[in-house]
């Protein structure tokens, strides 16, 4: 029996703070972006979401 296990921990520390760059596009197509972003794991996926009720006072909140 042969078992291998690995964990993945990484963090983007900075991109180019001197010029205020904290996010860098790795790949983009339409609304889908994959980025390197300061403070996050490398390879964050950005994209569009469903419109939802964000007003906490609304009885439909969360919908």
């Amino acid at each position, binding site marked *: 029996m*042969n078992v291998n296990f690995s964990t993945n921990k990484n963090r983007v520390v900075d991109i180019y703070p001197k010029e205020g760059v904290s996010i860098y596009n790795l790949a983009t*197509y339409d609304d*889908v972006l994959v980025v390197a972003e300061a403070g996050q*794991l490398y390879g964050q996926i950005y994209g569009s979401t469903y419109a*939802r009720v964000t007003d906490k006072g609304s009885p439909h909140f969360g919908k």
Partner: protein
Amino acid sequence: MILTSEGAPQAATGGRVRLGTQQPDALLGITNTFSYKNFNLGFLFDARFGGKVFSATNAILQASGVAAATVRNGEREAFVVDGVIADGAGGYTQNTKAIIPQRYWDAVAGLNNLGITEANLYDATSVRLRNVQLSYTLPKRIWVKHLSRTPGLVLAATTFG
């Protein structure tokens, strides 16, 4: 969900949102082999935990109406999406309008090229049986007699997944 006035889902305004990471938290692989007489059985399990994956393939199949998800109970009947519709005065009313699947999937997956990203973002966790191999080593008395130039002979069946 806040739906359009016809009762179809729509994308939130205000730009793109961070939805998750591509990367797994952990990877695991297990191989093992068992022997019984001349038989050998081996396998490989491969697992990935955590991370997200966006499927453009699914979005395109849904938008063109060939994905299984576009057919409900074997039919393409109109249905009411669970959500609310803006009443124009800052409030919302529960949706009661039925729409046909074509309109629904057009709204979800047909927006631009890839639809609403969130709709086709999946958990990338998976456990796969990648490989199974069953082999049989021919008894010496057979290969020594008939195939003596072969140093050892194994019949093997392998599958990959």
